[in-house]
């Protein structure tokens, strides 16, 4: 397997707070990797650094053999990176269908001049509808975003990310807020997409689903990487239990 993403020595500080300190890891082509850790461990910050939304104090990021450390977010997205947000961020003035159609038509909006001379949206809407069907919200396609339940908006995020035809899918807590029926269903959808060859990096707190679907885990705690490897082996490591599971057990004991 080839390396698709290589993150080296990422250090990100917000004032005096070290959100990430010298974190490095790799993601192989076709892999399903989960990034876990307790709240405030720096997981979301890491995804925002990878996509270029946050600029770290120190880092080297290589994607598909190209160094992208200083590349703008939209250019990273064009190289094949797609992100879903932890707190859903749909375009609220558009229908669900148009949210996805815009992403499907990313080739048309690449250049301002081309965008001005293209009008027809029907082919993109057609593909957008298929993606909405894929994530199970095709029935809501023509509806406005406002007033939709979280479960629908979470899936909209996924459909919109897939519309970019990415090489790497970065998911930030895609299952949060979904019930016990919806969560495994969406996780299965992501696994199916991964098995077709799309590399996935997922942040998730639902450990049951994480262990069920991931091929590898990277664990962060307090901005540092504390484990990296096979999910079952990682979960047996003492440091991980103390940092992550231990807290849950303490909570459960209390």
């Amino acid at each position, binding site marked *: 397997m080839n390396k698709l993403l290589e993150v080296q020595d990422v250090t990100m500080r917000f004032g005096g707070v070290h959100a990430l300190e010298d974190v490095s890891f790799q993601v192989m082509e076709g892999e399903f990797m989960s990034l876990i850790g307790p709240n405030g461990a720096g997981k979301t910050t890491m995804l925002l650094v990878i996509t270029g939304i946050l600029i770290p104090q120190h880092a080297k990021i290589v994607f598909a053999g190209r160094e992208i450390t200083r590349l703008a977010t939209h250019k990273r997205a064009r190289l094949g990176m797609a992100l879903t947000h932890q707190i859903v961020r749909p375009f609220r003035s558009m229908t669900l269908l148009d949210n996805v159609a*815009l992403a499907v038509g990313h080739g048309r*909006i690449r250049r*301002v001049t081309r965008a001005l001379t293209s009008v027809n949206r029907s082919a993109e809407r057609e593909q957008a509808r298929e993606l909405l069907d894929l994530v199970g919200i095709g029935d809501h396609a023509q509806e406005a975003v406002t007033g939709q339940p979280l479960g629908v908006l979470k899936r909209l995020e996924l459909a919109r990310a897939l519309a970019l035809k990415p090489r790497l899918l970065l998911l930030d807590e895609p299952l949060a807020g979904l019930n016990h029926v919806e969560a495994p269903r969406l996780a299965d959808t992501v696994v199916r997409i991964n098995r077709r060859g799309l590399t996935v990096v997922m942040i998730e707190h639902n450990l049951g689903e994480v262990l069920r679907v991931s091929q590898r885990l990277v664990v962060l705690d307090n901005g540092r990487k504390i484990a990296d490897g096979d999910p079952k082996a990682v979960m047996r490591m003492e440091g991980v239990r103390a940092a992550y599971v231990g807290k849950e057990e303490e909570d459960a004991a209390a």
Partner: protein
Amino acid sequence: MGVYELSLATVICINIILATSLNLITGYCGQISLGHAAFYGIGAYTAALLAKAGVWGPFNLIAAMVTAGLVGMFVGLTSLRVREDFLAITTMGVGFLFLGIVRQQESLLGGELGISSIPSFGLDKSGFFLMVLALAGVTTAFSLYVKRSWMGFAFEAVADDEDTARTLTVDVPAYKLAAFALGTAMAGLAGALYTYFARFIVPDDFGFITSITILSMVAVGGIGSVFGVIVGTALLTLMPEFFRFISDYKLLVYGALLFAVMRFAPEGLAGLNRLFTSRLKARKGGL
């Protein structure tokens, strides 16, 4: 039409071009501008200087568009650094900067006295009105086209949530600059037409009150809605003509209107229209 009605109709058409141009920047792309009168003024002064130098009218209209558009694009660079309230304050500053320059510059721009004795465009009053009407039509059609195009689609994404737009490959800086360039060039055209209409311009024609007036036209009509903006513009241009006291307390009335619209009907007349038609449909459906 009498001379008075003809003048009024010409002013309405010029204001429609002006309000549509701000709608492109603020309504479509979500970039607030409180200094739009500066670009109107740049177009007006460019056309006035060229006209006095004896340059051919239609060329001056284009030159006014190009000059205002280039300066607009330069000012648009600020929108890449600051957002929302800060952008509003920065653009307001640009408006005052323009005013300061034209007021102080006496040898070329005439200072406080402005520029007078501007040659005619070469058409009589009704001919000039028809030309302005046609240009207002073209501007409106272009504006509607932009809204339907993929550029309008990308503008909508930038206006909604520019950070998310970036993650979906939208080159946000390029789209913001495009909105500023197109919008300010159209404002430059409106300015050039005003120059040929009034044939006498002073700095106060392009002051802060004018910027607020344009914004009121857009907000009252309905930010982002082309037809709403046209109705809003016609209404706000005619109001001071029909009610003298409005002309005396223009800023007060427009300020109150802006407040009322933002508080009670944020989508302006276009939003109210949608609300009424949907209620009407619901009532018909219920019967």
